[in-house]
């Protein structure tokens, strides 16, 4: 195995991990503040991909407009889902929210099939994004470089927001103790809506990047990355944002290395490998890499 081959795999892992991290962070943030396992999160990614498709390929707007659109649409959609589906049952047991999120997910997938047809559509980004760059013998497309850079910038921005701003600290306070947060004058529903908006924006962005990589889009495309983000968040310790990012990259690397190092015949077992890894990590570290002792038992 040559060193450039290894570098290639590492870069591939970095790209895949970035997409997982973007989705997992939102997933974990929403879990952290409302203790909700939100399986509709992956479908926000799907809507982001279709939004990008419309903006870029149907209307022919430039890339920056598509990025702006997926962030906005993702944020609005996630807030809307919270408002309509989750807020009315805020004090219900955790499992109700979980089941509701499955329902929302199935609804969105079927609405997608109904309105957009279930047939996959080619999603071809502009040529300049698909051109290759050479890095020490390994190759990356411009899109892949953009994916990694955007992810790192967005995650750094998110960290600054959550650590340093009044609203960001207020979100963490709400996640920890909603009652005490209300006594501080924090509007809990607004803090929760903020978490959904941020998570949705990141999922929308991930939709653009994920679709650009896959080269096609369809209404069920959100399921697998949504599930992988869930795995990444659990590996990292659900509720921990740093953990979700770590989990996302770990998963991305593990998946790429598995496919890259095993004989090609085993390539189709990548998902089995991913979930096996999840089980293994949870056996050793039940709370995930960064998770605190389980307090989510309601």
């Amino acid at each position: 195995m040559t060193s450039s081959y290894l570098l290639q795999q590492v870069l591939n892992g970095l790209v895949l991990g970035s997409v997982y991290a973007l989705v997992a962070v939102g997933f974990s943030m929403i879990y952290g503040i409302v203790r909700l396992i939100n399986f509709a999160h992956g479908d926000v990614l799907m809507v982001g991909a279709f939004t990008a498709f419309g903006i870029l390929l149907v209307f022919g707007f430039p890339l920056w407009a598509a990025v702006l659109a997926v962030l906005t649409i993702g944020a609005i959609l996630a807030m809307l889902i919270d408002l309509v589906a989750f807020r009315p049952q805020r004090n219900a047991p955790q499992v109700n929210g979980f089941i509701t999120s499955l329902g929302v997910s199935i609804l969105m997938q079927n609405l997608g099939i109904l309105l957009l047809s279930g047939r996959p559509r080619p999603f071809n980004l502009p040529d300049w994004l698909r051109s290759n760059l050479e890095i020490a013998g390994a190759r990356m497309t411009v899109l892949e470089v953009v994916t990694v850079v955007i992810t790192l910038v967005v995650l750094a921005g998110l960290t600054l927001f959550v650590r340093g701003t009044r609203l960001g600290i207020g979100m963490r306070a709400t996640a920890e103790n909603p009652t005490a947060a209300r006594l501080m004058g924090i509007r809990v529903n607004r803090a929760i809506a903020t978490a959904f908006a941020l998570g949705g924006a990141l999922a929308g962005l991930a939709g653009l990047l994920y679709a650009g990589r896959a080269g096609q889009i369809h209404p069920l495309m959100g399921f697998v990355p949504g599930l992988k983000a869930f795995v990444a968040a659990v590996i990292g310790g659900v509720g921990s944002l740093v953990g979700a990012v770590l989990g996302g990259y770990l998963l991305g690397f593990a998946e790429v290395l598995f496919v890259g190092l095993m004989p090609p015949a085993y390539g189709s077992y990548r998902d089995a490998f991913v979930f096996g890894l999840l089980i293994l990590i949870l056996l050793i570290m039940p709370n995930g890499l960064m998770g605190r002792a389980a307090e989510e038992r309601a």
Partner: protein
Amino acid sequence: MLVLEGLDVWRGPSQVLHQISLEVAKGEIVALLGANGAGKTSTLLTISGLLRPRGGRAILVEGGQEFDLSRLSADRIVAAGVAHCPEGRQVFGGLSVTENLRMGAFLRRDGEVAQDMEEMGRLFPILRERAGGLAGQLSGGEQMMVAIARALMSRPKLLLLDEPSLGLAPQMVDAVFDIIETIRERGTTVLLVEQNAGMALDIADRAYVLEQGKITLSGPAAELAEDRRLQEAYLGLAPAEASS
């Protein structure tokens, strides 16, 4: 400053407050005494808008304005000048001490928040030492200081204190009660909920006694300290008709 008139409050299927009426005048320390489950915490939660009364009124008079607390949202009540330091401290354990204090000032838009943080550091020297540390890693007494300082960061006119002595070492309890007197001297009115009736009556001007959701006694603290019925209530020797 605060007037409660005939409050009826329910939690789920059971009525926890029956016709509660009490008053707190500006500059006073008023103690609300009673056994576990008598309705002390429910009274405070109704004042801060986390519980809604089915009947009666809760009025805050402040700065020439009248606020109907039973209609205002919790954040408006904080903005109107009420701070609630809850039972069991409830500091944000995963946030630093400084972040906890910032949350106390969540609604403030003035430029003097940093200055007030300094002031809290003077009032509670331990907070300055531990400013960057996680609040959850402090001792119980230190967390109590964080909780009180956090409440003061909203610059309240009325401070609701729920069992500040609970679970603290005796010398820590003394320190907390000293601080309550300091808070009053700084111009904040205090409504103090306590099980430790002796100490509360020592610093309070007036007191009310709650039993099973009803106010059964009230008066100047010095008089209540001598009252036989209060002593009976705390020894669990209340008359049979009250304990049904």
